[in-house]
């Protein structure tokens, strides 16, 4: 019987070794260890052995069963691993085919710049203010110290509408409306749509501006330089050179045009900056006492500054757009790039 058992073990281990698949190994288990299996049959013959022989042979049977069991387990594991490996190998896909994307939309560049500028100023404590686009002459011009028949009005070709109203030519009337409602201290930023009758590659009859206003005690022209330096550095990158040079706006005095070092050539001179190395991006100045008079502020005890910029100009510089008309044609091939 011992011989029979040893023979069985030997044959079993050979067939286990030869079997490559999980199913074959399961079959072997049933054939040998199942209820009607070969080892089970041999175990049934234990009864015919002498009492002395029985424990030793019994032990042998158990050890053979354990060995077969262990060999089966390990082979099944290997076979499973192999099968998994084969499956993974066969399931290769082309990862370069495009993904199935959810559609993505885009924000208009004008909205993007407005949001970015407002965010920067929100961080400096400026609240967003708004006002009507169809305005009274008084808010758009007179209260801003543009007297009737003054040549300064020529700087802004105005669209007029019925009822003696006009389309605001700048966002500055929002300053007036805000100051009439609110007493200093005041820090506002006013984005909005404005209109001038002018249309070519660099002028659009409708465009956008952002206006800023700060009024408090002891605000200086140096502070205006500070705020604008911080702002241009945040918008165009650290260490963007800023230059203020004297200019004229009826509602500020002293007034300044604000240039930044050309973002295209870095100040060396190129076509965009007309070889000057500078790009004009902002108008600014200290609020004129005449404006305070119109809103009943006491110019002796407070001071402040205002500044304004064209959004299109900034968008064009930021994104390298050369024709302003692209911004209003709404061609999706243009818009989808933002």
């Amino acid at each position, binding site marked *: 019987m011992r011989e029979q058992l040893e023979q069985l073990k030997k044959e079993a281990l050979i067939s286990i070794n030869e079997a490559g698949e999980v199913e074959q190994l399961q079959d072997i288990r049933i054939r040998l260890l199942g209820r009607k299996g070969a080892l089970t049959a041999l175990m049934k013959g234990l009864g015919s052995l002498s009492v002395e022989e029985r424990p030793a042979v019994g032990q042998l049977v158990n050890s053979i069963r354990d060995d077969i069991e262990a060999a089966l387990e390990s082979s099944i594991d290997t076979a499973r691993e192999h099968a998994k490996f084969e499956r993974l190998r066969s399931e290769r896909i082309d990862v370069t085919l495009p993904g199935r994307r959810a559609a993505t939309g885009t924000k208009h560049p004008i909205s993007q710049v407005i949001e970015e500028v407002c965010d920067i100023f929100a961080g400096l404590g400026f*609240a*967003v203010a708004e006002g009507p*686009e169809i305005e009274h002459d008084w808010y758009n011009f007179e209260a801003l110290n543009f007297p009737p028949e003054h040549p300064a009005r020529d700087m802004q070709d105005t669209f007029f509408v019925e009822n003696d109203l006009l389309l605001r030519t700048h966002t500055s009337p929002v300053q007036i409306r805000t100051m009439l409602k609110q007493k200093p201290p005041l820090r506002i930023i006013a984005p909005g749509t404005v209109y001038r009758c002018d249309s070519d590659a660099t002028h659009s009859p409708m465009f956008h501006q952002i206006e800023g206003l700060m009024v408090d005690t002891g*605000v200086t*022209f140096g502070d205006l330089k500070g705020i604008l330096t911080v702002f241009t550095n945040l918008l165009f990158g650290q260490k963007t050179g800023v230059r203020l040079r004297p200019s004229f706006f009826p509602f500020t005095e002293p007034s300044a045009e604000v240039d930044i070092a050309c973002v295209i050539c870095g100040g060396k001179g190129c076509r965009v900056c007309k070889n000057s190395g500078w790009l004009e991006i902002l108008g600014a100045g200290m609020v004129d006492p005449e404006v305070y008079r119109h809103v009943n502020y006491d110019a002796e005890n407070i001071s402040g500054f205002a500044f304004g910029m064209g959004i299109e100009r900034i968008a064009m510089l930021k994104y390298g757009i050369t024709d302003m008309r692209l911004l209003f044609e709404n061609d999706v091939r243009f818009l989808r790039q933002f």
Partner: protein
Amino acid sequence: MNVTYNWLKEFVDFDLSPDQLAELLTMLGLEVEAMEKLGEGLDDVVVALVEEKRQHPNADKLSLCRVNNGKEAFDVVCGAQNFNQGDAVVLAQIGAILPGDFKIKKSKIRGEESSGMLCSEKELGLAVESNGIMVLPSNVYALGTPVFSVLGLKDTHFEIGLTPNRADCLSVIGIAREIAAKLGLKVNYQLPVVAESSDKVGSKIDVVVEDTDLCPRYAARFISGCKIGPSPDWLVKRLNAIGIRSINNVVDITNFVMMELGQPLHAFDCNCLSGNCIVVRRAGEGELFTTLDGQQRVLTSADLVICDAERPVALAGIMGGQNSEIEESTTSILLESACFNPAVVRKTSKRLGLHTESSHRFERGIDIGGVVRALDRAAGLIVELAGGISAEGCLDVYSSMIEPSAIQFRPERANGLIGIDLPREVVIDMLRRLECLVSEVNNGVLSVVPPSYRIDIEREIDLVEEIARLNGFDKIPVTMPIARISSDRPSRHQQLEKRVRNILIDQGMNEIINFSFTDPGAAGKLMLGEDDPRRIAIKLTNPLVDEQSVMRTSLLPGLLETVARNMNFRSLDLKLFEMRRVYMPVANEDMPLEPLFIVGAMTGSSDCDVWNRPSDMIDFYDVKGVVEVLLDLLCVGGVSWLSDETDTYYHPGKSCRIMAGRDQIGSIGEIHPTVQENFLIEKPVVCFEVDFEKLVKLSGSKCSITAPSRFPDSTRDIALLSPDDLQSAAIVACIKGVKAKEIEHVQIFDVYTGKGIPDGFKSIAVSIRYRSYDRTLTDDEISSLHKKVTDSLLNKLGISLR
């Protein structure tokens, strides 16, 4: 304002290169917009001698010349006739680049070789026009030397963009004064001298100013015995250099003095002045007058005219008349130097569309104190260059002297506003450099009288600006303001505006921005009803084009035009939205309302670039989905979709009104085929419109959240046969109407018509999920609930189970 380096140098002796001067002017607020260095790069244009001149063998009008530059001789073909053998001429050698990027190359002209070009003044940029080539005095200049250097023609031309407040800088002297003030130099004022006869001016001419408000000062001189002719070379060159064409000596002098001193002048032919007198008055209503340019103008009583005894002879401050202009035969002249009311000049010039160098200056205001000086300067030059003699003195009608008044000025106020700390003496010195009269008052206050030409300086703040400017904006220290903490946060309106934009973008939509003005025909294209309020639009009184002549009352026309434009470019898959204002007039209010609206349009394929399954075409439900997400995220409650009374521009069967409670907040629909045609759109488009202002009012916030049930759910499906016109919303409402709290979710998962379904019916499959919060529902409980639901559907809606 155009000016040249050399001209400025005559008035102030600065030591700056042209580039440094440009920088200085720009930083003073006189922005140099363009700069042209005359003669730069023209070193290959040299003095040459014509050794031989003969007829071109193949062309009558050309000559063949042998010219020598001192080292070498060249053959040059020339078309001009105004020179001879032995003359010194200007030769542009091979390689020279003339103004206008004109490169001189070796060429063959009618079969003869030409190695260079003999130049005219025009070709060298020295004159606006020229007659023949430039001929130089013989034997004066060394052959081969660059012409611009030897003739002293090197100059730099500056184009200065002036702000409207700086009327004083519309003259060479004005700009020179700025340079002098900045550098602490003296301006070289030359006092004009006029040769006068013993005849008193009053015996020759008379001046009456009827309207002194509109003409506060009128000065005139009488000059007789002049000879009108060409101007001398220097004068022609000066004017040419700043872009003014020479006409004759007298007219050129008036232009020259205007550019030099900023005072517009006018010379009348005295023989044409009836009664030898000048009357300054308002024009008669409808009075006709022919200006120098030959145009007949119809005047109004708002215009100011200069008249002789009978008729107008000039439009005050704008342009002279044809009837009294200086001609070759003119011998006696009435020379005018006056000051007119800026507003009057501006109004007339604007109304007539007649903008001249003169009107430009009067509109901005001239130096009333300099009127006579300019008159004398011009008279002196006329006598010098055109001969003749001036009558003694000038008539100066100046009824009430206008002099600058003193301004109280506090230097510490200037320091405080600017953020600098200039010592008092420095401030005073700056003001004196600006030619202000400064005296101490008391308490540290200064009394400052600005010069008469600085009409822009009236208040203390104007002087503050002068100090900031002369100090240099670049020298003002950069500081950060000290501010009080404020508690502002964006308004709900502002927050939601941003949110809505982001929600739509996150759903794959591209934001567009259209002009706020639109075509007055847009309402018709949308087939809006005659009484639709959107038919009443605000009109522009001065539109650029008719298609942009009314303020929009709806965003749809712009949106549909955008769709059409994109389709023309073969962009057929579109998801666009616009969130902007519309402009609605309000009865009995002067200001219109400007509510914010949201519109969207979708068309084409609903997915982008899917390669393994066919993509669906966008329909009503894709758009409704976008709107549902928007309303859900903004927590707008009580939303329903009504298919009746939808807008005329929608497909009547594929559109709805979006309701929140009883209030319509928007609409969705496929665009009506006629409207689609009106906007030249090729393919169906589904649009939505939402009133943003109503969204702001209705949007809520999620404030109560329920914990999910921990017990299992059970889902039962029902297939219903319902009449075609029964809306699914009614079915869902009926199921929910059973009011069992165990009904957790109701979903329609299939709608089918066609084979197997009788005509006039549709099959609707609904899935209902049951779940309890406190226990596991038994089969019996669920069946009984489900029976309630099916009974309700059968009884209330009269539909059957399939």
